[in-house]
């Protein structure tokens, strides 16, 4: 009985849906606020993401003629579910719902589901903007995913474990892996920006080019789910990087683990916000070029060096 209750609690409250929702809204607000501040503006009030979400949920849900009804409804839900499941394996403040040897692979797999769903959403839609956006998102997926995976395998190889919790725990005894592998950390950050489709890699949803990409024809509840997926994905991605590169929540320090974890997450969030204000959006062929000619070789070199040092 208590077993079930704890599972339910983990799913719905912590670190499941409730906690992630709160984090997603807070992170979104901080992100928008920071970006506004860097641009010399004031930015939205704290309740803004919540108001946006409620409003979208309460809006009429228009389905354009010719669109696949089941797919349109299922895709945002599948991607949200995948992201939420991935969150179960990521330790937050020294507490984790589920863990086993190899959960890093599962998390990475689950995190790539939204990208595929995003592509399918564009492909099955009736709008040409969505089709173009969908094909762009697939191309982008191939560009960032490989360097991202190789960069994340660095910590795993170095700690000799494919479990996120164990990698994080090992760092609390030694030094943060971001200091050992600064290049890997940077590559993972770039990969994360690509994964989250944030500026400057917001190519599949480029506003001035293809309206809103695959989401052009989505409205109301489904749009809200897509937005929520993106924002929770951002939270999960940031938490993942904190665990892999910044030592998670350092146990053994006097400050509570959750607090220190939060500060690290905010640091990564800040870097994402600055990056999105710093650059112009790239073209998809430029991203593919950077991904395969710069990021992938660097990640490969990093990985080989890690194996050579770590294994030797």
């Amino acid at each position, binding site marked *: 009985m208590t077993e079930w209750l704890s599972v339910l609690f983990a799913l719905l409250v912590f670190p499941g849906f409730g906690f992630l929702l709160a984090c997603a809204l807070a992170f979104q607000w901080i992100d928008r606020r920071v970006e506004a501040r860097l641009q010399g503006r004031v930015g939205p009030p704290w309740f803004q993401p919540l108001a946006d979400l409620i409003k979208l949920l309460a809006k009429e849900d228009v389905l354009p003629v010719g669109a696949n009804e089941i797919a349109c409804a299922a895709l945002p839900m599948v991607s949200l579910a995948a992201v939420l499941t991935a969150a179960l394996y990521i330790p937050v403040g020294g507490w984790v719902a589920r863990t086993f040897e190899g959960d890093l692979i599962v998390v990475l797999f689950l995190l790539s589901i939204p990208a595929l769903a995003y592509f399918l959403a564009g492909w099955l839609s009736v709008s040409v903007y969505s089709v173009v956006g969908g094909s762009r998102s697939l191309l982008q997926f191939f560009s960032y995913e490989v360097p991202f995976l190789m960069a994340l395998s660095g910590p795993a190889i170095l700690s000799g474990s494919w479990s996120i919790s164990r990698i994080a725990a090992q760092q609390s005894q030694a030094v943060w892996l971001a200091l050992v592998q600064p290049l890997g950390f940077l590559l993972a950050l770039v990969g994360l920006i690509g994964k989250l489709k944030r500026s*400057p890699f917001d190519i599949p949803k480029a506003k001035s080019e293809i309206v809103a990409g695959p989401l052009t024809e989505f409205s109301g509840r489904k749009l809200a789910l897509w937005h929520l997926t993106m924002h929770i994905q951002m939270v999960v991605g940031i938490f993942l990087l904190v665990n892999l590169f910044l030592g998670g929540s350092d146990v053994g320090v006097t400050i509570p683990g959750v607090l220190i974890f939060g500060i690290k997450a905010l640091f990564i969030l800040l870097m994402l916000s600055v990056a999105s204000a710093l650059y*112009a959006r790239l073209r998809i062929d430029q991203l593919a070029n950077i991904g395969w000619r710069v990021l992938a070789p660097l990640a490969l070199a990093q990985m080989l060096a890690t194996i050579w040092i770590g294994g030797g």
Partner: protein
Amino acid sequence: MTKITIPIGPQHPALKEPLSFLLTVEGEQILDSALRIGYVHRGLERICQNRNYVQNVHVVERVCGICSHIHTTTYCQGVEALLGLQVPPRALYLRTLLCELERIHSHLLWLGVLAEYIGFTTIFMYAWRDREIVLDIMEELSGGRVAHAANVIGGVSIDADEAHVASILDRLDVLERQIKLFLDLIRRERSFQARTRGVGHLSAEQIRRYCVVGPAARASGVDVDLRRDAPYAAYKWLNFQVITAEEGDVWARTMVRVLETIESLHMCRQLLTELPAGPLTVRAPRRVPPGEVVSRTEAPRGELIYYIRSDGSDRPARVKIRTPTLTTLITLHDQLAGVHTADVPVVLAGVDLCIACADR
């Protein structure tokens, strides 16, 4: 790869004004484009015939909300020529001052729009923030942020006293610092260059064939500028350089426009420090003697031509407006052939379309 047709517009985030494109695309490569305009055609030339010369000053101000002052300047200049009026120098100076301020405002606005199209929101925000300085100066002078109503037939309705001139000069210094920053950014910043270099190329030969004018022509090495070639208003008393570049792509156009902004700032300083004393207007009769006139000026987007014919009444018999955007619109088909779909907004921004001007 199958060919698909992408409609762009009339409502599209890359277009502030309605304009419609049909792009035939293979993959991400554009094969063909078909342009359709006329969504903002309001029949302005006909409206002008229904109103008297005084009313028309305000009607032509609303041809375009970005370069409103240059339209009234061209119109008033034409009517003054028909009437044979000698406009007092102080009025000419103030008129030119607003023209140059408007050029700064238009170019900064354009820089912001280009930055937004390439996803560089920060530059959009910065450029528009600094544009507010110019808008403030213009509003202080004339009472309107966009529609100034500063020109009247035979002079101007605005004035600036000495304290005012000093405060404007101070703010121009602030503005110049900001614009130098943009200039440096355009020269150095990598992602900006990645998106603008080599995009929307027009050769000098193409420019001549399509009769393109303004910054777009000057960026391809065609050295035309009416302010120097056929000086009107107070330009004959001013020292300035005509900025040109050789590359002919969007990046070169950006450079030309930003450098022109700095040149305009220098011109504003000259105008303000040398502002002659004297009356602001001469009395203009309401009826205009029969005749016809062509009035030409250099708008922010290039050469603007008004043809006015009078039949002796208090209403013009014909007003014909030829705007600079009309010439650049034709080049779009050439520019869009073969580019990447992501570059469409960049190309559109690069030529600085003003559909409200072109459609009227």
